[in-house]
């Protein structure tokens, strides 16, 4: 039996290391074998050399110290997968785009650097929708990711490779990025935990930008406990990212140990999250979860987020506007693939046309939308207006959090659908982000925790959102739900 599936958490792995019944190198080798034969298309690049070198070093350290150096290396010997829109020095980073098929970055993203310094072992880079634009992972230039629970279904997106890798135990944890739900949605579809931190909590340095004012990197894990451990390492101010917050980070893992007083917890249930379009199985499962909280003594408070119906419209202006200029650097001059004939172009315009033909259809669609929304004569009606409504959406949450501690609802209106089922209708695909986008627009933390299955046995996620920079509390509530409900 494979070794790598025997351990469920960082705690269990460290315990096995301490007792010498597991060595980092054999652990990593086992993972690498499993990754190569999975057939899920979860990984785009396997960083075998890097992983083995890191594992060897871990072996040596373990031999020297006898025990896991938990204080200095809280993620010692823990195999991780990195979404392929986070750069790693010397490891191919594609953002699932033909444009970057051959791109080897000269530097490493802050989050990856922090995790590696804390002992995490980089197994490889996971599949995603091209430049993180999509909700099903079908927009990858290198093919869709298969849902480990139902191989003919999508894993969700855009962090589909990371979600599938965690679900199929092809890593102990993975990094995702979330611009409009790209961590929470695939987490929900794959039955794992996915946390989108508050905007500014985690450095974006080295994250290939999609919508800069919305993007956040977060952990995707098998448990809330591991999510807290990973967030402990990756979060906090980074002088290389001007939008990272100087507000001190929480003590996430340790605060999980504190008991929750369920009776003082007020849970906001927004009526807009249970409106038309929500699949009955999902609604049932989410409502049952809410009842469980009520049974523990928590108070359910009906609330309204009146501007949330505008979220999708606002998001698909703000995100694509930012994306249209973020993607201007992909001009084929300094890096990336130059298609045949580009270097022989007669003039610059022809050169750009040839190079930028490398973008996939969804990316092109968003660049065109964003360019339009920012153009002279239209930016007042679109971009500026959207920014104003975004502010109203933020204020809805401010109002709500005067009355409640946490807001709960579904992550997505449905469970994982079949590969190819929705790909011909981008608008229908966009509507899937209805419940996740508001947290990005308002900069709030949001987590998806598995809460049940539908009649087909597909995973359903419960979404929880809390005020900005209250990840510690959010994780504690999620942890309580995960642990106590499972045992009840």
């Amino acid at each position, binding site marked *: 039996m494979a070794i790598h599936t025997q351990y469920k958490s960082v705690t269990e792995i460290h315990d096995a290391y301490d007792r010498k019944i597991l060595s980092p190198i054999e652990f990593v080798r086992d993972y690498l074998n499993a990754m190569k034969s999975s057939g899920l298309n979860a990984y785009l690049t396997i960083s075998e050399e890097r992983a083995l070198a890191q594992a060897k070093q871990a072996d040596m350290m373990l031999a020297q110290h006898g025990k896991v150096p938990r204080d200095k290396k809280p993620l010692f010997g823990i195999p991780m997968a990195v979404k392929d829109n986070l750069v790693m020095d010397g490891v191919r980073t594609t953002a699932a785009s033909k444009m970057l098929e051959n791109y080897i*970055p000269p530097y490493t993203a802050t989050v990856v650097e922090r995790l590696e310094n804390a002992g995490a072992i980089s197994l490889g880079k996971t599949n995603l929708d091209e430049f993180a634009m999509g909700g099903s992972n079908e927009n990858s230039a290198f093919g869709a990711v298969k849902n480990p629970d139902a191989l003919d279904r999508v894993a969700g997106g855009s962090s589909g490779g990371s979600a599938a890798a965690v679900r199929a135990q092809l890593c102990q944890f993975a990094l995702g990025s979330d611009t409009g739900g790209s961590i929470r949605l695939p987490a929900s579809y794959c039955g794992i935990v996915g946390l989108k931190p508050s905007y500014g909590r985690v450095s974006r340095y080295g*994250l290939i930008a999609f919508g800069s004012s919305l993007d956040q990197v977060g952990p995707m894990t098998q448990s809330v406990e591991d999510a807290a451990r990973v967030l402990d390492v990756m979060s906090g101010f980074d002088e290389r990212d001007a939008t990272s917050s100087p507000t001190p980070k929480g003590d996430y893992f340790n605060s999980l140990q504190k008991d929750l007083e369920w009776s003082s917890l007020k849970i906001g249930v927004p009526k807009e999250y249970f409106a038309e379009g929500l699949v009955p199985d999902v609604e049932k499962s989410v409502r049952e979860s809410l009842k469980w909280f009520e049974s523990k003594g928590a108070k359910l408070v009906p609330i309204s987020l009146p501007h949330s119906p505008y979220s999708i419209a606002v998001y698909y202006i703000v995100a694509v506007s930012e994306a249209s200029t973020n993607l*201007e650097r992909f001009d084929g*001059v300094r890096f990336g693939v130059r298609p045949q004939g580009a270097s022989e172009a007669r003039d*610059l315009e022809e050169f750009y046309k040839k190079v930028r033909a490398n973008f996939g259809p969804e990316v092109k669609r968003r660049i065109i939308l964003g360019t339009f929304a920012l153009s002279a004569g239209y930016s007042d009606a679109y*971009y500026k207006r959207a920014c104003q409504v975004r502010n109203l959406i933020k204020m809805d949450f401010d109002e709500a959090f005067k009355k409640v501690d946490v807001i709960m609802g579904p992550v997505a209106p449905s469970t994982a659908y079949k590969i190819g089922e929705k790909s011909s209708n981008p608008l229908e695909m966009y509507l899937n982000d209805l419940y996740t986008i508001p947290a990005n627009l308002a900069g709030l933390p949001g987590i998806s925790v598995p809460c049940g299955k539908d009649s087909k046995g597909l995973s359903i996620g419960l979404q929880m959102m809390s005020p900005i920079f209250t990840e510690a509390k959010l994780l504690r509530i999620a942890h309580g739900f995960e642990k106590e409900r499972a045992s009840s």
Partner: protein
Amino acid sequence: MSTPYIVDGYEVVVGLEVHCQLATDSKIFCGCRARLEGGKSVADVESNSATCPVCTAQPGALPVLNKKVVEYAIKAGLATGCKINLKNIFARKNYFYPDSPKGYQISQFELPICENGFLNIETANGQKKINIQRIHMEEDAGKNLHRDGYSLVNLNRAGVPLVEIVSGPEMKSPEEAGAYLRALYAIVTYIGICDGNMQEGNFRCDANVSVMPKGSTKLGTRAEIKNVNSFRFVEKAIEFEAARQVELLQSGGKVVQETRLYDSTKNITVSMRSKEEAQDYRYFPDPDLVPVLLEQAFVDKIRESLPELPEQKRIRLASEFGINPQDAGLLTSSKSLADFFEKTLGLAVKGGAEKKSAAKSAANLINGEITRLLNEESIEIGRSKLTPAHMADLVQLVQASVVSSTGAKQVIAAVWKTGESVDAIVEREGLKQVSDVSSLEPAVDKVIAANPGPVAEFRAGKDKLIGFFVGQVMKETGGKANPGTIQELIKKKLLP
């Protein structure tokens, strides 16, 4: 009011956008070096060696604002009477060009750091106030290079900090535009925010030029002349452009809004692109940078640290040293020159020279011979071999009539080449004036004997002829005679 510059019944109107490279050690949004010792351009080191993931726009790299840039921009604003916006924001200016690695330039659009300032310029008819609309911070682009059929990009300059200083359309002649540029140049070099090497592109400008019928208040359609990097070229370009526009209008044509380039070898401007081809820059706030929020106390502290500005210095030099306003204006046109003057005077007075007369001869030499040499070599005084100590020695010798003013020029030319001491040069080149009566008397007698006509006229009261006699004696003595001594001798011998 100055006299309007009229071309065939048309007035010319000029507005200037000056790009001034800030003399910070590192770039505006990353830690890469932005300048070399002595203010030489970082573009000159090995191509693409002064770069990093941020300024080459690698995927995922983010800008972080260099605080020094903000400080320097505030200095520029305070020195030009601007209002400092305590909240100001960066915006993306989107356009594709290989020297702009991100595909957009980070600049400021709505809410720049400084607004509504002014500066005073000297015109033939006195002072004139020119309004400054705004000063904003932005990054410089790299450089494209075309060689052997290839196009190459050097990003060393990408991310070097700039301030763009935008004037109102208020200059009415090429000379006014030149005066504005010189005054602005003096300010940015005085406050130390710019190295001021125009050859290196430290200080360059775009000129918006239009013409309108004399007396009209409605501005004509303007053309923008891009990237001119010399005061003289700006004046010439405006002169040409105004004449071109007037000729166009008079022949029934229309001026089109366009971007033009000045060709200094042919002294013409040529069209680069018209407004129809103009870009839509799609400005919007850069989400990678937070708004710049300043404390008033921070601004006040910078205000207190500002040095004496050119205008103040000009007034002070005139009153303190008794030099005429025009000389004071020339001296203060560059900080290095004014500093050189003051240091010279300090040393000369210490050495026993009389202040006002030493100031006069120092000013004459600096504004004359020395400025000529500087212009010839296009260098700053700091890079020459001539030091204030040299000058102080020289000024004292001139004052003591040991060296004549002609001799002084020779001394300067020699020091310029070798850097030797003034005494050694005076000695070696035999530049000591002869003031000794007994050695001059034979020459004076010879001149008197040879010119009976002028002698008679002089005696009859034609005083002006004294100059003629002095000249003749000088010729006789090979230029070494002290003209004062000669005058006295002539008068003594010819007048009762």
